[in-house]
C-alpha cells in the first residue's frame, strides 16, 4: 500500500496544472520582477529570492506547452498571476507564475483518454504526465523533466561552468 503523494496545483491560463511537491521549494506572493531584454519570450524576468537570481517563467507564453494557439489577449492574462512557485531543479532554481495555488493530495490517474483530455484542456499531451481527477475537475500533472528541459533549464549545472554555461560571477571576482 503506497502513501499519499502531494501536488502543488495551480492555474495557468485556462488549465489546472500540478507539479510534484518534491520539486517545489516554496510558494510566494508574486515578488517584484525585473524584465530581462534578450531573454526568452516566456521568461517574465528575474526576481531576487534569498539573494539568488530567480528566473520567473510564464508558462502561458510557452507556446509548445499549448495544444492550440493562444489568443494574444490570453497571453497577457497570466501577467497578473499572483503567485510564484519556486522550484529546485538540479542546481537551478526557477519560478513559475501561477494563480489559485494549492497543495492537494494526488489521486488515481484516469486510465484512458489522457492525451485527448489534455488536449481538451488546451495543454499539449507531450508535457502531461498524468490526468488526475479531483471532484469534477481534471488536474494535469506536468512532466517536470520534459517541461524544464524545454524551457532550457539544465537538470544539473557543473560547479565550474565554462564560458556560456551556468552562472557567472557578475562582479568578476
Amino acid at each position, binding site marked *: 500500500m503506497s502513501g499519499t503523494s502531494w501536488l502543488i496545483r495551480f492555474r495557468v491560463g485556462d488549465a489546472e496544472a500540478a507539479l510534484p511537491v518534491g520539486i517545489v521549494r516554496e510558494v510566494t506572493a508574486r515578488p517584484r520582477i525585473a524584465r530581462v531584454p*534578450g531573454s526568452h519570450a516566456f521568461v517574465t524576468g528575474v526576481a531576487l529570492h534569498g539573494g539568488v537570481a530567480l528566473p520567473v517563467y510564464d508558462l502561458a507564453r510557452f507556446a509548445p506547452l499549448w495544444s492550440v494557439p493562444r489568443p494574444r489577449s490570453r497571453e497577457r492574462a497570466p501577467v497578473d498571476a499572483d503567485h510564484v512557485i519556486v522550484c529546485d531543479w538540479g542546481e537551478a532554481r526557477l519560478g513559475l507564475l501561477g494563480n489559485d495555488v494549492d497543495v492537494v493530495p494526488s489521486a488515481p490517474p484516469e486510465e484512458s483518454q489522457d492525451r485527448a483530455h489534455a488536449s481538451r484542456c488546451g495543454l499539449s499531451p507531450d508535457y502531461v504526465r498524468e490526468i488526475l481527477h479531483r471532484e469534477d475537475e481534471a488536474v494535469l500533472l506536468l512532466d517536470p523533466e520534459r517541461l524544464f528541459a524545454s524551457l532550457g533549464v539544465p537538470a544539473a549545472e557543473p560547479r565550474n561552468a565554462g564560458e556560456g554555461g551556468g552562472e557567472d560571477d557578475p562582479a568578476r571576482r
Partner: protein
Amino acid sequence: MKLLMVSVGQDRYAVPADIVTQILDPALESELHLEPTEAVYRGERFPLRNLHTGAGEERGVSRIYLVLGAARNRAIVPVDGADAIRDVPSTAIAPLPSYIFAGTGRVFRGVFSDGGEPRLLLDQEGLL
C-alpha cells in the same frame, strides 16, 4: 563596486562605473555623429550599443551617451538618463543564469536589490 544607475525607457540598469570614461550630451557635442550601428566621436568610430532596441523600447526623449572603455575595447551606449552612483558590494550582486537568454549576446550579468527593486547590472563583456 561603484555602479552608475541609468534609465532606458521604462527600465533602470546599472553600469560598472569604472568602465564609464565619458558622459556626452549630444546637444553640446558637435563632434558626435550617429550612424545606425556606430557612433563617430571626434573622428573616432565606436560601436553603438542600443539598449532601447533590446528592451523593445522607442528611443527616449532626453538622451545622453555613455562612452565605455576597458582594455582596448570601447563602445558608446545611448541612455535616457544617468542619475546616481551607488556603491554595491559585489557579494550583493546575484549572477543571472545564462540559460534564460535567447541568444549568445547577453548584455546583462547580474541582479541586485536597489531599494527593494531588482535591478539589472549590465555586462561589461557584452557591451565591449
